[in-house]
């Protein structure tokens, strides 16, 4: 099937199998491997991207469901070589270790900060409950999101 999808501002047109998962479209067709597959069941959040500005888990969506959509992946977050405040926060606050959950975690946090500019620590923890991290214990992730929230206000 033919799909028209804008990925990180670049319009694309591709022929895809109807059953192709959106995350595989991003990784294997668009060549953007920053979005990771951790569980294929929507449970870990490593594949989180933004679809029309909202966080979605790309491992349980079909590429054809994104036809006509605007997608942002981790690769599209920095603008003109300038890191997004959340990327900066994760770096400054040691919000990542192995880095596998990080792209999804950052995209979920982008969604949170677009809805809530001044989240409490509890609100951050709650907003990220669909994104699992096995390395950090989340404390530095919470600090990273607070860093970004502060910077973006």
């Amino acid at each position, binding site marked *: 099937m033919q799909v028209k999808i804008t990925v990180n501002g670049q319009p694309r047109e591709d022929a895809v199998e109807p059953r192709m998962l959106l995350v595989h479209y991003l990784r294997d067709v668009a060549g953007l*491997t920053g979005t990771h597959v951790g569980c294929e069941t929507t449970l*870990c959040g490593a594949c989180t991207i933004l679809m029309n500005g909202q966080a979605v888990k790309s491992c349980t969506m079909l590429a054809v469901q994104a036809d006509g959509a605007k997608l942002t992946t*981790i690769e599209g977050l*920095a603008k003109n070589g300038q890191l997004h405040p959340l990327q900066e926060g994760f770096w400054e606050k*040691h919000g990542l270790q192995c880095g*596998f959950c990080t792209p999804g975690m950052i995209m979920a946090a982008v969604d949170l900060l677009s809805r809530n500019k001044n989240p409490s620590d509890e609100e951050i*923890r709650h907003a*990220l409950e669909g994104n*699992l991290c096995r390395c950090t214990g989340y404390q530095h992730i919470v600090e990273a999101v607070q860093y970004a929230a502060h910077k973006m206000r």
Partner: protein
Amino acid sequence: MAALPKFIGQPIRRREDPRLITGEGTYVDDVKLAGMLHAALMRSPYAHAKISSVDLSAARKHPGVICALSGEDLAGRLPSLPCVAPAQNVPEHPALARGKVRYVGDAVAIVVATDPYTARDAIDLITADFDPLPAVVDAEKALQPGAPLIHENFGTNLAAKAEMTPPGFDKAMSEADKTLKFRLVNQRLTPTMMEPRGVVAHWEHGYKQLTLWSSTQIPHLLRSQLADMLKLGENKIRVIAPEVGGGFGAKLNVYAEEALLGYLAMELDRPIKWIETRRENMAATTHGRGHVTYVEVGFKNDGAITAIKAKFFCDMGAYLQLLTPAIPSFTALMVPGCYRVGALAFEQNLIFTNKMATDAYRGAGRPEACYLIERTMDMVAAELGMDPVQVRRKNFIPKDAFPFTTAAGLQYDSGDYEGALNKALAMVGYDKLRTEQAAARQQGRYLGIGVSTYVEICGIGPSALLPPKLKGGGWESATVRVEPDSKVTVLTGVSPHGQGQETSFAQIAADALGIDIDDINVLHGDTAIVQYGIGTFGSRATALGGTALVMALGKVQEKMKTIASRLMEVPPQQLIFTNRTIALASDPSKSIPLQKVVEAAYGYKQPIPGVEPGLDASAFFEPSGCTFPFGTHIAVVEVDPQTGAVKFLRYVAVDDCGKIINPLLVDGQLQGGIAQGLGQALYEETVYDENGQLVTASLMDYAIPKAQMVPAIEMANTVTPTNLNPLGVKGVGEAGTIGSTPCVANAVMDALKPFGIRHIDMPLKPEKIWRAIQEAKQAKKG
């Protein structure tokens, strides 16, 4: 140029991060090669069954399928998977099952196809007939007469048995005023690293060289084992561990898929990729823990422990993976904890069950020991009506007693257990908390305060402590190469996968050479680039790999000083490295730029007579002993008696990992470790049903902690250096996990004290707690 700061001890943000926060890191699944094929595995749906037939014909005919193989097809072509640790009964472990399947997830067949979707379609076309056999799920029952045998040739389900009762043990036990006996379950856990395993194998026919990307913690050790299995020279296998998305011990192994892909890439002469699904990861990547322990403790009325006897039933699973039978030995060795236990006796039964193999999982034997001894301390305190802190103080090894040989025969390097305890008690306001707890109990609120004073063992060495079949000892390696432009390349034999040694090792090298951290590039995880190394596990990387780096730096420094002394006409021993120069220690204004020395070393004009050109050095550090980090964790929880839910009110962690290279990384290791440890205490449990079906086969069913399930941790350190390495570092990768589990369990039990509840086995789920409360209430009424 501005003066350079000292980097060691600073919270430097990680040099790994820019690529990882922008999605530019390369994990195994990101490796793409021209003409690459994709593999998928058919796995056993039964825990224990005879394989009657595996019909691959439909799969082989499916368009896009290149090959499909069963265990019988591989017979005689691929040797048994390695278990390098000694055990009386080491079973044959074929990469694809032959004759019988022995756990749910046991690989039965492999399909290689042009794309991953096709490979998985073809798996569904395989018709396999199984004759189910009764499964052995419970390790204790596996030893009962008449239990089904998992490996018939052994005539038993016992893999190995170890016993130690030292002379004088019975006397020590008889000197006790009181004894207690109890049973502890240290439940089986699923490591659940966020990146499942994955392999890409590429055979370059013309070069007769195999390159294998694997999500592994041990690229060199893996290479050695694969060379054996595939009958290739070690110089003809290149193992690359690219970005590795967490391991926690479960990637310290040699797996069927690594051997299968290497073998098939050579057979088919095509690159092949296999990426584990999460379901496979839960079922067929090693698990951890899985001990049932019967403890007998003897103690005086003042709380002094005279003797401990522990009888272990350790669940090995169906096969022995790389180090499976070695893990429980760390438990036995660490039972005394940080205490002067009078005498220790133990018996360990290592038992086959129809489950995935257990092996190293964060802590690897030490969390089981720490849980045992720290629960014991609280049991003794409860029995004597003493404060748990007082019982610990009574038994502590005093700080002036180091080096100290424990009842288990280990020599602890250094420690100040009372120092860490006092700091944690002050931070949490212990006495005030006890008052608040008493007041809360009056109001029907169930606050619990849990303490654990842990010690653990890191940087396992010397080499004699490791099994020879591992083909690598307790040492670690480093190479330092000062390039012609004065930039420095560090090659380390450790294989970091989140721990941050690209940063901390750059800090060490920058300080030694007086250069900027940005002028250092730390490389690892590629056996074609890096000299032989052992890898990252057992909290060994900095204590051993960091020391090897210091040694290699020392050799380079010596050579640079020799050259500088010739150029400056001063004795080399008066020279120091500072601010990109080599300078006179007594007068740093008298100096020569580092670059001038490098140019001389590389013979830009002409080499210094008598000095060999070039500027690099390698070093291998063999430790004389292990390091023993320690600390005190205190959890404050509230249990809701209506629901059994546990809520964290405080969590204080005071950890002592010796000297600290980068406090940001140390905090990160501890916080992550604590989250994993409290996961075991409250949430996590690998569950197989009575037929051996894996119930916790998805992240929906296996509860790793989410963000709102982990409290904010109040952290501090004490610093008691080790003298076993020049950096004074001990290790910190597993400390949080080891200290936190008993701390949280003790807190919950403390909260439940008014009900007369002494012990509930982990995980302390609301339902279990609620039931225990109901039973306790009934018992009181009855």
